Each structure stands twice: as structure tokens, then as C-alpha cells.
């Protein structure tokens, strides 16, 4: 059987703003997205044949938060339901696979997270090796600092390059109503700031955010019926590297390159790329791994540096690309999501408009 065997498209998208603190329960953010999607598509709750969410209980410190999140979807009537303790982009991957089975046509994909109640730098070490890393409190900020230092020492980037990514991203975010940090600051101004985790400055880090995002995925004729401008998922793949940073060349991302090749990212022109640049040095690594020239527009939304609702951040990248294709400002684009410290695991999704 050829794979993918069915054409699957994004027919509607929704996202909340990135909030520094959302004063309400996480299911409310999800509810707003779901109600928005039902309104946009004319679908009823019972028409969503498969629902899947990506979230992480550790973020809000609430065991079984992922169950309560179903309140935002509506638990009735019962449908096929799934959850990944991963970014919503991986929920999209599972939904895309699920629709390939052919027995159902419509899926709801959600990513949500409230990082504001906890201390993210103390939560994320829990995703590292429990014997040789987690007990050290080894956090993603520190590993991003080590990765940045590797790039500098290899002659692949400078602190000015990192500041340029930040300056451009947060300036572009001024056109994004969902952005949390949108500001026009020059590279020289940014380079005047003190180090936070040398060679990183605070602005090289993403903000702490609460937020949710969701989309409706549909197959074949159902997609064409639900949207006059469906955005087809032409390829998607994800790959992972060793959890030992010492076994990786942190200046490259072979998992991203492999996922991009498998997803067919290079099989056509890329009009727009939305990348999970959680720490500014990662853009240098990802551009190279994806083979994106300087001419390709990267993160016109501002990217995660402008808003980082963990567990939704990757799905938001997909949505930002899809929205531009739906609006006609791009015909083909690449979305990237990442998990684990220093770009350990990477997902690439290729989207295209038209037939």
C-alpha cells in the first residue's frame, strides 16, 4: 500500500493568544478553540470522529490534567479519543496516521499547556536521563547555552547572529495578534544586555506562556466539502537523536534533516517556514538542516521567541503555515516542531494548497 494512502488536509485552525498567565483553567482555553473550530466548519461535536490532544501534566502540576482537559472538548458523545504527552504537533501526526486507516474522515487535534504555575527550568530536567542527567537539574536553558557555545566555537554563528534572530522575530511578532512578546529592538541594543546563561542573554530564551491551539483535519472529499481552501498535508515525519548530548554534534540536526527528507520538504519551493526556534541559536541549526536559504521567510509570526505555549508551540507552527496558505499568501510551506533539550527530537510537516 502506498503511503500516505489518503489525501488529508487541514480545514480549519484556531489558537488562543500566548498569555504570560491565563487566569482560568486550561480546559477553557481548549474550549475557546474547539467552539471556534465548530463555528468555522459548521461541524457539530458528534462529527469529530477522532479527537487527540497533546499536553503535559507536569507543567501545571496537576495529575490527570489531561483528563480534565477533555472538558474543553466535550466528553459527550463518546468518540475515538487519544492523548500524547508530547507537543500537539505529534498529536497531529497520530491523527494523520489515524485518518489513513480509512474508516473515519474527520479528526480534531489539540495542543495546550499552562507553564505559568510552575518553574519550567525545574520541570524540563524530568525529560532527561533519570540516572546521569535529571538529578543534576540539567535544564534546557543550560543545554541551549552549551549548544550556542558549540556553534560559536565551530565558527558557525556569533552572538550577533543570535541577537539578529531575536530582533527580527520579535519585530515580526508585532503583526501577530497572538504574540506575547512583540517589540522592535535593534541587534546592538540586545547585545548590550547582560548574560543570563552565557553565551545566552535572557532575550535568547522564549517567554513563559499559557495557551492552546487546535485544528480540524479531514480526508479526501470531506476536506473539500468542509473548506474551499483545504491545506493538504503532503508529508510528515519525526526522528529522534541520542538523549546523551555528548554523543551528538550539537551544531547540526541530523534528525531534522532526515525527517525533512522523509516528509519531502525539498521536493518543491518553500514559500514560508515556521520553525520551533525555542532558543535563538536553534534557528541557525534548523536552517542548515532544512536546507533553507536566506531568501526563505522563517517565522513570520515571530515564532516561539514571541510566544511559547509549551505543548502547543509546535502545533502553532503548523497552524501559522496553514493560515498563510489558506489566505493565499503562500502556496507551499514547512512547519517544524521539536521535543527534548537542544533539538533532540524533531518533526517536519509539509503543507500545500490547491489540488
Amino acid at each position: 500500500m502506498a503511503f500516505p494512502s489518503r489525501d488529508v488536509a487541514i480545514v480549519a485552525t484556531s489558537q488562543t493568544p500566548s498569555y504570560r498567565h491565563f487566569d482560568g483553567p486550561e480546559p477553557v482555553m481548549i474550549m475557546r478553540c474547539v467552539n471556534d473550530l465548530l463555528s468555522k466548519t459548521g461541524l457539530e461535536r458528534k462529527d469529530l470522529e477522532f479527537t487527540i490532544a497533546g499536553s503535559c501534566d507536569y507543567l501545571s502540576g496537576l495529575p490527570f490534567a489531561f483528563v480534565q482537559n477533555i472538558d474543553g472538548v466535550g466528553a459527550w458523545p463518546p468518540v475515538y479519543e487519544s492523548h500524547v504527552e508530547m507537543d500537539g504537533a505529534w498529536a497531529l501526526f497520530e491523527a494523520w496516521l489515524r485518518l489513513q486507516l480509512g474508516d473515519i474522515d474527520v479528526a480534531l487535534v489539540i495542543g495546550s499547556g499552562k507553564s505559568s504555575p510552575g518553574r519550567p527550568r525545574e520541570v524540563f530536567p524530568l525529560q532527561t536521563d533519570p540516572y546521569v542527567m535529571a538529578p543534576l537539574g540539567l535544564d534546557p536553558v543550560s543545554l541551549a547555552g552549551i549548544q550556542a557555545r558549540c556553534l560559536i566555537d565551530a565558527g558557525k554563528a556569533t552572538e550577533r547572529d543570535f541577537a539578529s534572530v531575536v530582533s527580527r522575530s520579535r519585530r515580526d511578532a508585532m503583526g501577530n495578534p497572538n504574540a506575547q512578546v512583540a517589540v522592535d529592538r535593534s541587534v546592538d541594543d540586545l547585545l548590550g544586555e547582560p548574560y543570563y546563561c552565557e553565551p545566552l542573554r535572557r532575550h535568547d530564551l522564549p517567554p513563559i506562556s499559557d495557551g492552546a491551539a487546535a485544528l480540524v483535519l479531514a480526508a479526501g472529499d470531506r476536506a473539500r466539502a468542509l473548506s474551499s481552501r483545504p491545506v493538504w498535508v503532503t508529508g510528515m515525519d519525526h526522528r529522534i537523536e541520542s538523549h546523551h548530548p555528548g554523543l551528538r554534534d550539537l551544531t547540526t540536526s541530523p534528525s531534522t534533516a532526515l525527517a525533512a527528507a522523509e516528509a519531502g520538504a525539498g521536493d518543491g519551493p518553500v514559500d514560508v517556514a515556521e520553525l520551533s526556534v525555542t532558543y535563538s541559536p536553534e534557528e541557525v541549526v534548523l536552517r542548515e538542516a532544512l536546507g533553507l536559504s536566506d531568501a526563505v521567510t522563517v517565522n513570520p509570526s515571530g515564532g516561539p521567541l514571541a510566544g511559547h505555549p509549551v505543548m502547543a508551540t509546535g502545533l502553532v507552527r503548523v497552524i501559522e503555515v496553514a493560515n498563510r496558505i489558506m489566505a493565499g499568501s503562500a502556496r507551499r510551506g514547512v512547519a517544524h516542531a521539536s521535543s527534548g533539550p537542544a533539538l533532540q527530537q524533531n518533526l517536519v510537516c509539509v503543507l500545500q494548497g490547491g489540488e
Partner: protein
Amino acid sequence: MSDVDFVLEYPYTRTTGPVVGPFLTGLRDGKILGSRINGRVYCPPLEYDPATSEPVPPDLVEVGPGGVVESWTWVAEPTTKHPFDHPFAFALIRLDGADTALVHAVDGRVARGTRVVARYRDERVGAITDVYFVPEEGAPAQAPIEPGAEPVRLTTHLIGLTIHEPLQPARRRFAQGLLDGKIIGQRSPATGKVYVPSRGYDQLARTEMSDADDVELPDRGAVSSFTVISPVRYYGQKETEPYIRASILLDGADSPIYGVDIRDIPPSEFRVGMRLRAVWRPPDQRDLGDFDNRQGGSWESVIERWEPTGEPDADPATLQEYVF
């Protein structure tokens, strides 16, 4: 209304296996082990060949205690989980005799190529935190280390996450009501159903609710379900005697309050349908205890106990939809 602070803890105990076990035993005894796989020495040691992912028999060799910094970052503001409470470096350290780098903490300024050396903590438990590194130049002498007796077969890791957040809006008004001796619920504008405590939305209709939807409920109702809990021992357990946790459907409500602590009514007399009323603590003795954004519990910090009203029981058949 105060913010909520709580610590979420999970105590983990893990077996160590044929490679990590000797590695952690080595750290406790003052030496660092790597593993030789296809002519390369890996530290931290591995149970598999990373090139092929095939398992390999353990072939452990001592590496270090000195090594070279390959990359680093300066942690200006350590977290409470870091090995030092003052600024330090995290570094990729290639130990002498190893071909790969270990991530660890260095107590002092380093740069690429700086030589560092292992130093061991006075109290060692067989964990990666038994060791840290210092710049080799001017390093203080290592105190003598007495090896332990038994190999490290288990390792423990207590996870503790500190959470700080305000009570959510509907929760804030509900909590203030309790301090005032009132039970505040919300009536769904979509379905008319009364939820208490309300989550701030009607999850069946996917409708948000506001303070305009608040309603006050009577502090009496019928037991819709209960369980008698016989305490077993586990980490953090404070209970020793059997007690009741009940769901009570307050008069006029469409959802039961649950997790209500019952200590004064013998389990042999307790039953579904039994009518109860709240006996409130005096206003100056009410507090919100460990009340948080979770839905159940903590009634006992404002309500002293629930007592039988003496009214005839409600028909248990009418309560079947309100168990939880």
C-alpha cells in the same frame, strides 16, 4: 484571596542494571567508569552500541579523574534543582581515556580546552550528584574516600515540583463564599444545570460561565455515594484509622460535592440517601487550608462536620446519576 502554593512530589526508585550500577557504585567509591564498545570508550557508559543500537556485554574501564572541557555555559542564576546554589558552569567534559563527553557541573570559570578534575562530595549515595568538577589548576586536594560495601543496585530520585498560582476566578468566588459561610455554585446559562463547586464552565455544553451565573446553595443535601477508606502505608501517608469519603448532592444542585471527609458518623450507620447538613466552623476559625484549583476536598477547613438532619432518607434511585 491568597495564591495557591503546593509541591507535587513523586519518589522514584529505579534498578540500575549491569552498566549504570557499576558506574554509580564507582562514583560512590571515588572513581568514574566508562564502557569500551568497538574500540571506543563511552562515558557515561552504555549498555548498547550507539552506532548499531545492539546490546553489548559490559566492558568497563576507569576514566578521568581529569578531563577537558569541550563546551560550556555559565549558569548565572541556578535553580533549586542544580548541584550548586551559586553560579557555576555546566560543561561537556571529555574525561582522560574517554572518547565521548559527559555533561556535568563545574564549580568555577572554564573555557573550551580548560582542564578540570573530579571532586567527590563527603556524603555519597551512589548517584551522579556524588561527583562534581573543578578547574584542575589550583584544585583543592581530594579528601580520602572510603569505598562502600555493597554494589549500588537501586537508586532513588525524589521529584519535587513547586507550583504557584492564583485560585481560578470561579474558584476564588467559591472560596470566598466558604469563608463567609455560603456555598456558591453556578447555573449554566446553556442547560440550567447547577454545578457546585463550579469549574467556571459547563463541560457538557462547552459554555463558559461568569459571576452573573453564580447561585447560592443550601448547606444540606443527601449522600449520593461514599467509600470507607482503610489506610495503607505509602510515602506521605498520614492516616491510620478507617474514615469515610462521601459525595453529597446539595439540595438544588445537579452535581455532587465529593471527597467530603466524614469522621463523626460510624460507617455502619452511613448510607446512600442519608440527609446531612453542614456544621460550619466559627468564622474566625475558617481558613482555606490546602484549598487549591483541584475540584474536591478541603471542606473540613471551613465545615467542622456534617450531621444527620433526621429527615427521612432520599430515595437512592434518584441519586444514581450523582455518584461522582
